[in-house]
């Protein structure tokens, strides 16, 4: 895959975020401050604007510009986190014009590492990490089993959704939800939910 596919991925993610903005905000109002949906919509709308402006950027440039745009337009916790995620993907893309499955998986893993360094969250803290980590692991495993990129991405999306579902019973230890202590249990984490949309968008538009 190349810039065209990556662009399609980001556009699909932007559509998904817009369609689910109210749901994401509602989830955030239960254990946060009711803005995750509007934050992500604002950011991804800006990303799409950048894509339109520079249609034939190379993969690295495209991903970095998406990351910078999210950092510059979202704010909150999700801005730096999603921003760092795409910035690190861009760095890992190097100067290649085309990705094979392994390269794409490596880029996703680099993004995950970025999120972990920036946010210092661990698996089980009830954050987007709980969706992203199993997704990246599932992608690697499926590819290792020789699955097609399409199937591997489907597996990753499923793992992300399962990871997001698994945040419901958790007590948050990072982010705004952590202030609720025990009261944060019983609610789905908004960021893990938007991360699921990201992986589903990948499964839909890549490979």
């Amino acid at each position, binding site marked *: 895959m190349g810039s065209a596919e990556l662009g399609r991925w980001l556009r699909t993610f932007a559509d998904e975020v817009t369609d689910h903005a109210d749901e994401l*905000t509602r989830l955030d*109002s*239960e*254990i*946060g*401050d*009711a*803005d995750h949906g*509007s*934050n992500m919509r*604002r950011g991804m709308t800006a990303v799409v604007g950048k894509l339109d402006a520079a249609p034939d950027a190379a993969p690295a440039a495209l991903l970095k510009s998406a990351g910078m745009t999210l*950092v*510059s*337009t*979202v*704010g*909150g*916790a*999700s*801005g*730096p*986190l999603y921003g760092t995620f795409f910035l690190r993907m861009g760095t890992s893309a190097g100067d290649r014009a085309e990705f094979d499955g392994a390269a794409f998986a490596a880029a996703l893993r680099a993004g995950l590492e970025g999120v972990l360094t*920036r*946010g210092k969250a661990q698996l089980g803290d009830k954050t987007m990490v709980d969706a992203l980590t199993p997704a990246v692991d599932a992608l690697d495993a499926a590819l290792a089993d020789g699955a097609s990129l399409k199937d591997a991405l489907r597996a990753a999306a499923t793992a992300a959704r399962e990871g997001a579902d698994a945040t419901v019973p958790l007590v948050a*230890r*990072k*982010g*705004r939800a*952590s*202030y*609720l*202590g025990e*009261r944060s249990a019983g609610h789905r984490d908004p960021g893990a939910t938007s991360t699921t949309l990201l992986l589903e968008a990948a499964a839909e538009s890549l490979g």
Partner: protein
Amino acid sequence: MKKLINDPADVVSEALRGIELAHPSLRVDHEHKIIYRADAPVQGKVGIVSGGGSGHEPLQGGYVGMGGLDAACAGEVFTSPVPDQMQAATKAVDSGAGVLHFVLNYTGDIMNFEMAAELAAEDGVTVETVIMNDDVAVEDSLYTAGRRGVAGGILLNKIAGAAAEEGRDLSAVAEVSRKVIGNVRSMGMALTSCTVPAAGRPTFDLPDDQMEVGIGVHGEPGRRRLPVAPAKEVAAMLVEPVLADLDFTAGDGVLAFVNGLGATPLIELYLMYGEVAAILEKAGVRVARTLVGNYFTSLDMAGASVSLLKLDDELLRLWDAPINTVAFRWGV
């Protein structure tokens, strides 16, 4: 949702327009949503940059001016500003003496200021960062995001602003800032939720006979939901955990601060202060200074918070020093 707004997406930028028109002593960078004191950068003075989500009146801009902040970065409602804003503000207020970043302890604010500090370093500006985390409603721990920064940040603005105005250097202003952070504790409660314009409906539903105790300032639900109680009892629920967390009997007395969350009338805040003062007297805590009003709100939330700042000669003198901002003005 009933609000005096146009498109919810434009609330912050349109409010900034009104602030600029209403206050000639402030300069507004609309592109970056930054409120500057008109004479920034002040030669030889350490610059102070704060920032946070909008919706906390009198907005960060209320504390910008002589004896206060040099710049305040306004994020979207309840969303921390982005690094570009703090980077631009930091560059603009640096006169060579370096810049101090005031951050309230929220994951988003921390990460965005962190990135801004990285960018500012590349611009060759020396930046120090202090983090306000005064909310005793949140248990502190290495494994969590730690305590929230709430109304105590207002007292920090004033006192550190005075220290910078005195011409202290960056590390000295950072030092007195850390002293304030070490000496202030807060606790809040809400009678109603607030309504984020972009969300369009109350962040949480609260029955008519219930209140949230240990509330955050962004409409995050509190630690506990309890039946509504008389002001006397509510005051005790707020003051006792604060007193339990730090010894306020020692020292040169305290600054007692009853803060309104937005929709609670001043008449109730003064009534609350009467109850708070009675509890402090019983506890043997001497009140040296008092602040009562809406100084750090959560949009249209009804409720109040109590903050206590342990004073010493230095903090007392810096609190009393002249200031000329929209929210605080004395001595000039």
